[in-house]
């Protein structure tokens, strides 16, 4: 297995070809008490691409996300990361493979500083135990310093470098969303999963986030899988789009094709997708 701890060399813009897909869902179903949130969903995410998962509310996008990251158990099907099956692993093990995610609800403990929040994501990249930290052993100090370097890099990319020592609680929502993004970056993941990264923020901030996501992908060679409702954001950024409706895939193609797909337009009842199609 590749050593995911080494920082990845910067990749080219276009997604790489060859080798197993970075992420692959095959016939995935997720059930809640008899209701299928996700039904026989299959799609793959090419390494180094930005892949969007869209669909009307209740389509099963979040459930897919949670199924990939091990929060939900699959009723059937499989999820593979670089050809290796991950759907039976526990969430923490999946994270340690280099799959990082953000949360819609922003999991940023209020009383921590921005830097501390980001540092939590470094957990599985470092090793110092309680004793080593408590006694201030050299290894612990060394890790602290290298953590700080990664934190500063990620913060700069996300645009939160100047507030690293501020407490997260009082920060405005848009800024906290950027912190959440920076936090996921700190894990130096190979797959970055973004759960509605621009929900609830204005157009300027959305544009900044799009820019940051693209930069992150280009500089670190990440693969990005995102769930979003904002069509502009998705259309500008995505290399490929998978559309869900009522737990099933109704389209899985490049943005231009998806835009024009009648089934997709119907699913959204016209408005958002048509507008984007007119651009």
């Amino acid at each position, binding site marked *: 297995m590749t050593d995911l701890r080494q920082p990845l060399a910067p990749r080219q813009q276009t997604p790489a070809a060859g080798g197993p897909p970075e992420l692959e869902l095959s016939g995935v179903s997720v059930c*809640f008490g008899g209701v299928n949130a996700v039904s026989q969903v299959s799609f793959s995410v090419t390494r180094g691409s930005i892949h969007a998962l869209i669909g009307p509310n209740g389509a099963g996008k979040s459930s897919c996300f*949670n199924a990939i990251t091990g929060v939900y158990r699959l009723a059937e099907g499989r999820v593979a990361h670089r050809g290796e099956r991950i759907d039976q692993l526990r969430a923490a093990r999946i994270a340690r493979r280099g799959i990082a995610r953000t*949360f819609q*609800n922003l999991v940023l403990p209020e009383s921590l500083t921005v830097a501390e929040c980001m540092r939590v994501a470094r957990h599985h990249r470092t090793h110092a135990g309680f004793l080593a930290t408590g006694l201030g052993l050299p290894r612990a100090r060394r890790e602290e310093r290298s953590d700080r370097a990664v934190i500063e890099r990620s913060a700069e990319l996300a645009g939160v470098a100047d507030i690293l020592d501020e407490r997260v609680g009082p920060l405005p929502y848009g800024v906290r969303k950027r912190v959440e993004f920076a936090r996921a970056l700190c894990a130096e993941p190979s797959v970055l999963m973004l759960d509605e990264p621009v929900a609830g923020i204005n157009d300027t901030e959305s544009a900044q986030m799009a820019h940051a996501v693209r930069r992150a992908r280009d500089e670190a060679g990440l693969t990005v899988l995102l769930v979003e409702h904002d069509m502009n954001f998705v259309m500008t950024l995505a290399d490929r789009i998978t559309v869900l409706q009522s737990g099933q895939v109704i389209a899985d193609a490049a943005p231009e094709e998806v835009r024009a797909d009648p089934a997709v337009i119907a699913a959204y009842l016209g408005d958002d997708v048509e507008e984007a199609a007119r651009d």
Partner: protein
Amino acid sequence: MTRLLEAVLNGVSLGSLYSLIALGFVIIFRATGVMNFAHSSFLLAGAYVTAAVSAKSGFLVGLLAGVVTAAAIGAFTQLVILRFSKDKSHLGLSVLSLGVNILAVTEITRRIGDNTLPLHDPWQASVWRFAGITVPVSRVAALAVAAALLAGFLLLFRFTRWGLALRVSAADREVAALVGVPMGRVSWTSWAIGGAMAALAGMFLAAFPAPGVEPSLTNSAMRAFPAAVLGGLDSIPGALVGGLAIGIAESLTATYEGHLGGFGSGASGLVAYVVLFAVLLLRPDGLFGTKVVSRV
């Protein structure tokens, strides 16, 4: 054989009392999400007032006074202490109830002092004998009353608006509030009912085998906590099953203590927790508790 039968019967009766206490605990948890560590103080308060008042005005008046007092303390705790707390997390409020417990138990212990307050109950130490088995009347009465109350509560739970509100509030508080369930009323009435049940159970626990109300009553009360937890903190049937399980286990241990050697004496006080550990090892959410599925 008769010994075994007696032990089981005693256990069922004791268990029904634990079920009553545990049920109050579960109702409070379902309605407000708080693990009420003050529950044992409600029990002690009720039993104390019962004893104090029945000394002057007779048993029934005393019992009424005790139940009302405990209900009032429960309602007060929810209405004032918990309602006005700035820290409203479940952990914070549960810990807060612990503080209430300390205050209440300390005060009542101070009043009881070194005495054992007699209850003036109508059963005293009388026993029934049939088929070679000896059963204390007070225990039979306990079982009858507890069963009636539990049945009554289940009816309330199933068929009244209040019961419906309780079921809904447990499921989703926000939705419940939005749909117009009177959350405030459901909250304090749950605490009051919890207190009342605890007081009744407390009276029976103090009636037999103890000669009356002593501060150590709280130890018995605390054994209902594992009963509630092992059944599943939010499960009504769980409270019933848990209470019975612990009651029977305790009674059997007490009867056969001698066989456990020197370590055995007093072990009946522990068996509740041993059973709890055993259950939690296999089912961390309790026998019938709902597994928490959190939304992320």
